[in-house]
């Protein structure tokens, strides 16, 4: 009888410990979701042929995916342009893609951002940017000029 009580007590202790682990793990997972508002600092070449980089910040508001694999974002730059974007996430890895607002005669491009959300859920560091410019290039497999850049992200709220 004493052995049975001891075993039951041990099982209860294990269950409580398991519940505590699950309870603490759930918020951590939720914290790494991309939903919400971010400030992204993006560094890319000034144009396809330029050796100079430009760095700019955008405000990203990522809507929840609502059970889908994809979500929508709005992306606003410092000049007041707001465009749409699309995002997906697997584990901590996030991808955001959007069209740069084209103004004047400046070069225009599509951006594909990929990065990993830190465990805190508030930072993305060493993110990569693929830039697909509007300028045609038969020597590039994409048939358009491409460049690489980088980005970092900080959650606003």
């Amino acid at each position, binding site marked *: 009888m004493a052995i049975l009580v001891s075993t039951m007590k041990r099982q209860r202790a294990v269950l409580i410990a398991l519940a505590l682990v699950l309870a603490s793990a759930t918020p951590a997972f939720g914290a790494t979701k991309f939903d919400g508002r971010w400030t992204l600092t993006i560094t890319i070449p000034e144009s396809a042929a330029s050796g100079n980089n430009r760095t700019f910040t955008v405000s990203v508001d990522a809507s929840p995916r609502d059970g889908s694999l*994809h979500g*929508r974002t709005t992306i606003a730059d410092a000049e007041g342009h*707001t465009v*749409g974007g*699309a995002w997906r996430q697997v584990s901590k890895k996030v991808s955001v893609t959007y*069209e740069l*607002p*084209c103004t004047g005669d400046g070069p225009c491009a599509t951006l594909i951002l990929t990065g990993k959300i830190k465990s805190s859920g508030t930072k993305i560091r060493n993110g990569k940017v693929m830039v*697909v410019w509007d300028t045609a290039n038969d020597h590039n497999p994409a048939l358009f000029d491409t460049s*690489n850049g980088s980005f970092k992200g900080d959650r606003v709220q």
Partner: protein
Amino acid sequence: MKATRFAALLIVVLVVAASSVTTNARMQSERTLAGEWLVTSSPINGETASPRGNTLGFPDRDMFFEENGDLRTGVVLREDAGPNVRPLGVWRINGNRFSTTFQLWCPDSNGPCGSIVMRGEFVRDDRIRGTMTAFFDVEDPRSPTGFDMWTFAFKGDLVAPAGTGAAQRAR
């Protein structure tokens, strides 16, 4: 008298010419992707997969584009792949040319995923053509981006203009 008539005729000709230029310019600036498009794709130079062997195949794509001010969004209805398969994207337009980008739909989180960039032009108001490039999140040091990519051709026909019943299906 003849000089007055000639001057009047000249003014009429100039006004008609100017109005024609304005109309053409307006037609150019009024191009839009908004609506439902049926897009078919085909390989370029027989390349049916990326250098790393990734491919999307060549399914017909039912694409819906919407425009709400500066927010230009798109969704692909892949009913062939499943009722809830709805890859999301965005687009922009510049005269006769357009660009769109979509996220790839990857239900298998262990497999490769990526994004699509479409670059095209209007053949007519209701017909488009161009190329799509899939940028896979698989590293490829031989690629200029450092990632595996694959380009193929597409053409599309407008099935339903924006605001029509069919185009509302994607909402």
